[in-house]
Each structure stands twice: as structure tokens, then as C-alpha cells.
């Protein structure tokens, strides 16, 4: 089926069949990264700008490699050396970059909705690489790709998302995606980081990780944003660790074939213990690997993939 969107702003805009199209397309792209020549000529001549107003290692380099493996030209915008530090507005920055005729702009910004705003005046295809605590669609897609690889099917799958739900765009995008695909989602975290309004998204909530772990097929740990710790969302890192860290002891209660996920970066010894992050049930690095295939699929579906008829 065809993919009709101009932008990828969030999972909320996608239907389950569009999500499946992206995942199926990513399946085909996965193999390219295992070749000796990791490059296909598909997006030759297309220009993409990586516009990151927030730090990132995984997402930025993953998009960069995805674009390069499709033969697109990609320019990285570096916040520290850009005119944004001289006071240029967000809109002006985008309009100026757009004057250079890119085909797509990948945006990360600390304000929720910044990417949607950009799409209202931009001519390019806009891709959301994370906006505030709103959405991070490609992360949810690569998580879904990884889950599908391990579990084959989403229907009835029990997924537990643990940690700072309040601030997490990864959690939101994952909730939207997993609900659309028919999985059952339980959110777990300390009360201050787990607003009960989330229940209106059709998910369950639980403040007890030990109990939630027992039922889970997938345990998705979120990063505790230590930089926000001064606002006292929980009393101490030590208490958080005691109640909500995924440790070997806790994981023993889980089903035999449960898997552990984390979007990174990991705070080892805070939300997840080192032995759990590195254990055989952890698919954390698999997620990173799959990120490239998923982002190649997104770039392909937005920028290329057009045909006239079969060319025989």
C-alpha cells in the first residue's frame, strides 16, 4: 500500500497499516547494512538537513548513515557553531536553510510542537527526530521493528514501559504505536512521573514494578533524566533505584522469553543494572542497529519510492 504523507510528525498521524508499511519496508532495507558495499543509489541527488537543536548521538548519526546508505547528501547543523546562538529565530533558521533547496529537514527541538510548527511554513519534507516531550516517531518505529523481530506479532502482547513517563516523548510515541497495533501497554513509574491522565490513551498504570514485570513480554526501560532531578520528582536516586530499577533479582520474576529494551542513553545502575543491560535478553544494541533500517525506510517512503509503471 502507498504511503501518502509529506511529513513524519508523529505516530498519532499514522494508521496501523501505514505503520506496517514502514516496518515491512524497513525489513527490505535491513539487509543493505549487512552488505560489503552498504549503499544503494535510490536517493541520489536528494539533499537532507539534520537540524538538531538538542544533543543527540544515536538519532543524529542513525539518520545520517541512513541517508548516506541511500546515496542522499546530508548536512549536519551544529547548534554550537550556528547562528541560533546569535539570536536567529527558529523560523528564520529554517527559512534560510530552505533557501538552499533541501528536499527534507530532520528536526529535533526541545519544544513540543516545534516540528509541527515548522511543517506549517516549510516546503520540504519534515521529519520529527524528537520534539520536547511530545513525540519521537522513528524511535517508536524502530522499537516496533525490534519487537516484531523478536515476538512476530503485536496482538495481545504485553508491554511494560517503566520510568519517567511524564517527560518522555519516547513513551508517548510508543504508547500511540503499540495501541494502534493492538498490544497491551502498562506504564510503571513513581506517581510524580506517571500522570494518571495517560489512562485515556487506553493503557494501564501500575506503581509496582515487581508486579508489572511478571506479566510482561517486553520490558521497556526509559532513561531517568537526572538533569531534572533537582525538581524532586522522586526523593532520591537511591530510592528510585530500589523501587524502579530493572535488576537481575527483579527480572527473575519475568516470563522466560521476556525481552529488555531501552532507547538510550543508559544510566547504568540507575534505571537498569549493568548486568541486565548487557544480558542475553537485552535487545538494546539491536534497537540501535534496527534504527538505520527504519530511518532508511522513512526517508525512502517520504522522498523516493515513486514509479510510473513496471519498467519490464
Amino acid at each position, binding site marked *: 500500500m502507498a504511503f501518502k504523507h509529506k511529513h513524519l510528525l508523529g505516530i498519532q498521524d499514522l494508521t496501523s497499516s501505514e505503520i506496517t508499511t514502514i516496518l515491512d*519496508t524497513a525489513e527490505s532495507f535491513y539487509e543493505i547494512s549487512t552488505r560489503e558495499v552498504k549503499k544503494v543509489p535510490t536517493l541520489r541527488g536528494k539533499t537532507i538537513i539534520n537540524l538538531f537543536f538538542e544533543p543527540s548521538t544515536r538519532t543524529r548519526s542513525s539518520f545520517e548513515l541512513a541517508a548516506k546508505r541511500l546515496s542522499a547528501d546530508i548536512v549536519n547543523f551544529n547548534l554550537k557553531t550556528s547562528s541560533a546562538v546569535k539570536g536567529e529565530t527558529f523560523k528564520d533558521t529554517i527559512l534560510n536553510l530552505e533557501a538552499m533547496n533541501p528536499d527534507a529537514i530532520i528536526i529535533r527541538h526541545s519544544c513540543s510542537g516545534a516540528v509541527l510548527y515548522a511543517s506549517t511554513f516549510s516546503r520540504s519534507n519534515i521529519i520529527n527526530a524528537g520534539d520536547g516531550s511530545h513525540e519521537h516517531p522513528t524511535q517508536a518505529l524502530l522499537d516496533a521493528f525490534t519487537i516484531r523481530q523478536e515476538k512476530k506479532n503485536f496482538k495481545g502482547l504485553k508491554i511494560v514501559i517503566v520510568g519517567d513517563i511524564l517527560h518522555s516523548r519516547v513513551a508517548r510515541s510508543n504508547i500511540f504505536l503499540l495501541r494502534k497495533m493492538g498490544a497491551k501497554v502498562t506504564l510503571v513509574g513513581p506517581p510524580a512521573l506517571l500522570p494518571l491522565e495517560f489512562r485515556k490513551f487506553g493503557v494501564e498504570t501500575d506503581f509496582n514494578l515487581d508486579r508489572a514485570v511478571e506479566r510482561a513480554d517486553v520490558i521497556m526501560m526509559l532513561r531517568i533524566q537526572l538533569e531534572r532531578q533537582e525538581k524532586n520528582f522522586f526523593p532520591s536516586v537511591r530510592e528510585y533505584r530500589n523501587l524502579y530499577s530493572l535488576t537481575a533479582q527483579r527480572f527473575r520474576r519475568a516470563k522466560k522469553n521476556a525481552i529488555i529494551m531501552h532507547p538510550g542513553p543508559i544510566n547504568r545502575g540507575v534505571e537498569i543494572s549493568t548486568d541486565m543491560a548487557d544480558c542475553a535478553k537485552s535487545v538494546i544494541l539491536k534497537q540501535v542497529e534496527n534504527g538505520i533500517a527504519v530511518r532508511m525506510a522513512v526517508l525512502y517512503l517520504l522522498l523516493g519510492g*515513486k514509479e510510473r509503471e513496471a519498467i519490464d
Partner: protein
Amino acid sequence: MEEKIKARVMDTPKIKRALHRMTTEIIERNRNLKNLVIVGIRTRGIYIGKRISKLIKEFEKVDVPVGVLDITLYRDDFSESEAQHMVKKTEINFSVAKKDVLLVDDVLFTGRTIRAAMDSLIDLGRPKTIQLLVLIDRGHRELPIRADYAGKFLPTSKREIVQVRLKEIDSGDEVLITEPPGIK
């Protein structure tokens, strides 16, 4: 409106005879069959490739592996067109480097698919040789490409459509010439 069938140019026995003849030609030409690998172009090239491999096994007791190539990512007409093309998997579970690669497709027309397939193959490794087998060569080449083995040479007009149907995915084995509706 249904497309009009103008002629049925091949049926099960004719396709079978053509594949037998081409297999014999392949065996004659490739003295070292152990170095031969088959790569079928999606979709019908895969099944023709598998049938050829089976015939080689029958005639010479040599196993020739068959891989699957999806050329979507190497097409040269992305920007000219409207509809979208789904990418499917390339599944070649062997190295093509230093091999004699037999590229297989159902119909040879403009040659653009074969150009894309060769680019794709060479990115996977450097084959010793690439040979091309097609069931139907219908003419109208736009690139300097020719088939090493052809089941049938079939002069056509450009607006006609040649349809190869194979029992693996269609109702049976046949080759049809059809015309799109609305043309006299």
C-alpha cells in the same frame, strides 16, 4: 474494462521445451557448472530461475543456488512518476564474487531492469561473468543490452503488453500478448 487478449503465444509444453533448450545451452557454455549461481529478478524471474536450477540438477547432478534480487532501489525512474513502489527483499544467501552469475527475468523489453539488476549485483560483489536468460525477448531496447539465452523472440508493438504467467503464482503456465483497454 478488461484488457483484450490478442494472442496466447506460449503454453505449458512450449515453455517447458524452451526451458529445456536453454538449460542445455547453459550447460554447453558453462563448463564449470559448480561456479554457476542463479539470480532471479522479482517476481517471475525467481520461478524461472528455480526451474532452470532444477533442470540442471536433473541433467548434470549439480546443485546451482538461486538468489532473489529486488531492483526497486536501483530504478532510474523514481522522480518521473506518481505512484509508489514497495521495496521488497533481496535474498542472495551466497557470495556472487568470482562467480558466473546467470541473471533471470521473464521479459526483456527496454533493458532498464537489467541495467538496474547489473548495478545491484556488482554492488554485492564482483562476479566473474554475468549472463542473461529471459523467457521472452520482445524487442524495443533503450540500452545496449542483449540476452544470452532467450526462450522466444517475440516482435511486439510498444503499446502491447506481454504477460508471462507461471503456475507457481498464477493460474497456470502461459505467455499472453494483451492490449490495454480503450485502444482500438
